[in-house]
C-alpha cells in the first residue's frame, strides 16, 4: 500500500463526509510510462510522462454523481469535493445506485496477483533502444524487398491505485507492464499496402517475448496478405485464428453487461439457465490469471 495515496484518499472520505456525503467511493491512481518507437531504423517517437487521476463517486441522499480531477492539492480538492456534494443534491434520486453491501467485502482472497515487477527501474534507456532495434531488424530481414516500412516500439509502465469506500472497503493494486510491437507494411503488385503486426505484452520484463520473434512474425503475417483476392459472397464455415477470437467474442460483452440485462436491452435478458449457443462454447471471466 502506498501510504501517501492511502492518506489522501482517507482525507477525501473524511472531508466529503463532513460536507454531507454519507456514502462515497474514492479512487486514486498514478502511473508513469515510457514509449520508444522506431521507424525505418531511426527513433521516431520518445515519450515519457507521469500521470495522476482521482475519481470520486458520491451517493448523497439517494442521489449519485461521479467526479474526476487531476489537481490533487488539498485546497483545490476541498473545493472540488464541497461543490460535487452540492451538485449531487440537485439531481433526482436513484435508490438502486448505492455502494455494494459491505457483506460482499468479507472473505476476500489475500493473495498477491504477482503483476508488479520490482526491477522495472533496472532496465536502462539503452537496453530499451536495443530491444526495439532487434525487433525492427528482424522484420526487415524476414520481409525482404516487399517491405515498404517497419514501425517497432517498446513501452513499459508502472501503475498503482488505491480505492476506499465510506462503508469499509480498502484496496490497493500495483502493476507493471512491458510491451514490444512491430508493424510491417508491404507493397502488393496492385499498389495495395497490406499491413500486419505482432506484439507481446507481459507484467515482467524477463518474460517478455523475444523481440526478434515478434519482428519476424509481423513480417510473415504481412507477406501472407500479398495477392489477397476477393471471394464470392457465400455462406461458409469459418476458422478463426486464436489471436483474433477476442474480436469475435467481444460482441457478446455488451449483451452480458448487467446494465443491459436490467434495462432489458440484451438478447440474453431472462435467458439465464437456457441454452444460448453450441455445447462447445464455454466463456469464462477470470481476473486471477497470474
Amino acid at each position, binding site marked *: 500500500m502506498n501510504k501517501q495515496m492511502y492518506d489522501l484518499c482517507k482525507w477525501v472520505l473524511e472531508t466529503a463526509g463532513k460536507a454531507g456525503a454519507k456514502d462515497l467511493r474514492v479512487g486514486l491512481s498514478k502511473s508513469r510510462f515510457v514509449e520508444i518507437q522506431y*521507424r525505418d531504423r*531511426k*527513433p*521516431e*517517437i*520518445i*515519450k*515519457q*510522462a*507521469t*500521470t*495522476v487521476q482521482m475519481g470520486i463517486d458520491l451517493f448523497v441522499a439517494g*442521489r*449519485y*454523481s*461521479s*467526479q*474526476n*480531477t*487531476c*489537481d490533487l*492539492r488539498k*485546497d*483545490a480538492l476541498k*473545493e*472540488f469535493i464541497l*461543490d*460535487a456534494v*452540492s*451538485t*449531487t*443534491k*440537485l*439531481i*433526482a*434520486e*436513484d435508490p438502486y*445506485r448505492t455502494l455494494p453491501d459491505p457483506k460482499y467485502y468479507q472473505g476476500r482472497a489475500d493473495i498477491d496477483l504477482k503483476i508488479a515487477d520490482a526491477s522495472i527501474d533496472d532496465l536502462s534507456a539503452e537496453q530499451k533502444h536495443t530491444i526495439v532495434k532487434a525487433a525492427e531488424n528482424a522484420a526487415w530481414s524476414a520481409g525482404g524487398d516487399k517491405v*515498404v*516500412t517497419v*514501425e517497432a516500439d517498446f513501452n513499459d509502465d508502472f501503475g498503482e491505485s488505491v480505492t476506499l469506500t465510506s462503508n469499509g472497503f480498502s484496496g490497493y493494486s500495483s502493476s507493471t507492464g512491458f510491451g514490444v510491437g512491430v508493424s510491417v*507494411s508491404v*507493397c502488393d503488385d496492385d*499498389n*495495395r*499496402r*497490406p*499491413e500486419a503486426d505482432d506484439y507481446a505484452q507481459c507484467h515482467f520484463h524477463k518474460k517478455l517475448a523475444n523481440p526478434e520473434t515478434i519482428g519476424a512474425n509481423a513480417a510473415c503475417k504481412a507477406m501472407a*496478405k500479398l495477392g*489477397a483476392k476477393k471471394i464470392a*459472397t457465400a455462406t461458409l464455415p469459418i476458422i478463426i485464428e486464436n489471436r483474433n477470437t477476442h474480436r469475435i467474442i467481444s460482441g457478446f460483452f455488451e449483451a452480458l453487461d448487467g446494465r443491459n440485462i436490467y*434495462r*432489458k*436491452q440484451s438478447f440474453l435478458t431472462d435467458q439465464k439457465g437456457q441454452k444460448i449457443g453450441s455445447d462447445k462454447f464455454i466463456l469464462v471471466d477470470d481476473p486471477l490469471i497470474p
Partner: protein
Amino acid sequence: MDRIDRRTFLKATTVAGGAIIAAPVLFDGWLTFAGTEKAGYFEKEFGITDALCKKVLGKALSKGGDFADLYFEHTISNSLGLEDKKVDRASASVNLGVGIRTVKGDQVGFGFTQELTEKSMMAAAAMAATIADGSATPVAGKFAPAKTSDYFPLTGTKPTPLAPRLSLVESTAGKCFARSNYVIKTIARFGEGRKRIMIVTSDGVKAEDLLPGSSLSAMVTVEKDGRKEQFWFSLGGRRDFSYYTDDIAKEVAQGVVDAAVMLLDAVAVPAGEMPVVFAPGSPGVLLHEAVGHGFEADFNRKKTSIYSTMMGQKVAEPVVTVVDDGTWPNARGSINFDDEGTPSQKTAIVENGILKSYLHDRISAKHYGLSSTGNGRRENYANYPIPRMRNTYILPGPNKPQEIIESVKKGIYIQDVSNGQVNIGQGDFAFYVSQGRLIEDGKLGAPIKDVNIMGSGPKLLRDITMVADDLKLGWSGTSTCGKDGQLVPVDAGMPTVLVRSLTVGGTKKRGA
C-alpha cells in the same frame, strides 16, 4: 431546488506573485469557466508568461531540433444522464496540463506534466530534448498572437446554471415517449465541455482559444408484438447552451423515435453486389473512415496508404470533390487553428476526381516541402499532434436526390452506418447498416436490418457516379475519431450519392 452561490471552484496553482485562479466556477450546480475571453487566460490564471515559455522552449531545444512547442490545456466537462424518466446521474471532470514537444525532422521527443510549475515544465522539456543530440537551437525573441477567424463564437459571457439543462434532458425524454406508444424506454443525456488551450512555438507563434463542445442525445427502446428494437440519435457541435431550444429537443426525439419504430418493420436483404444510394448527412462517416484516413499525410509519408503514390492522379469521377473543412461554423470538427498554431482552412483533397492534397501537420508539410493544411491535432496535452481530419465531406453535385433513387432498379438506400472496421493500407472496410431501406424499381421500399456493407474505400470513391445537391453534415455532436490511441472531435457528411456497386452482406438468400 437548492441554489448554490456562485463561488470560486478551484484555487490556483501558486505561482510567482501568489496569483489565485477564479476561472472555473460552479454556477448553480454547473461547473464551467467564468468568462469567455480567449487571450491571456493562462498568463492571468497560472502565471505562464512569454518569458517562462521562452525558457521552457529553450530547454526543449537545448540539444538542437527543428522546432519545439508547448500546448497548455485546461478542460472542464460535465454530463447529465436520464433513465426511467428522471435525471439521476451527473458527472464532472477537470483536466489540466502542458505537453512539450521537440521535433527533429520526422522525429519527436515528447513529455508532459499536470503541474504548471517551472520545475515540472523544465523536467518535461528536458525529456523532449532527448530526441536530438546536437547543439542548441535558438528560440524566437517574441511570440506573435495567431490571427484567425472565430468559427464558433460563444453567445453569452455568463455561464448558464444547471436547472435548464435538467429541464432539457427531461423534456427530450418526455417528447420521446409522447411521439410513439411503442416507446418503452428512453435514456437521454446532455454533455458539455469547454477546453482552454494555449500553443506557443519556438518559431514565434502564440495561439489561444476557448473551444466549446456539447451534445444532446437519446436512445430509445421500442416494442411491438414482442419484437424489440433500439436506436440512438444526437445533435450538437461546437455550441453553447443557447443552441438547445425546444425545437432541438423535438428534433432529437423525432430522429430517434422514428428510426427505432421503422426498425420494427425492417426486413432482411439478399447478399451480393448491388447499387447503393447513400442518404445525405450521417453516411459521411463512411467517407471519413474508409476513404479520408488514407489522405492523412502521415500514412502517405510513411508509404502505408494506397494513396501515397497517387498525387495528381484520378481517384474518382469528375463529379466528386472531397474537402476537409475546419471552418464550418459550429461544426464539431471545426477549429480556429490547429494544435500546432496553424490557422484553420478548407482543404480540397480531391478536386473533380483528381487527388490534390493530403492533410498535413507541420512534420509532413516539411517532408513534402509544403505548408501545413492546419490538420495537426491532438486529443489533449498528454499526446503530440498528428494529421487528423476535421469536417470531411463531398461537395454538392448536379443531381437531385429523387433522380438518383429513381436510377436504381434494385439496391439499397443507406441512411446511417455504425460499427466500422477499416484497414487504411489496403483501403478495406466493413460497416453495419444501422438505418436503411430497400430500393425497388426506383422507389424506396421496406426498412432493412442485419445488413453489412464491405469493400475497398478507394474503389467506393471511384464508383460514385451520381452526386446530388443536398449536402448535409452529420451534426451528431458526438462524432469522435480514434487514431493512434487519440480521440478527437470530428464531423463528416455528404450529399445523396450513388455508388454503382458495393458488396452487401445480408442474411436472406437471393430470390427468397
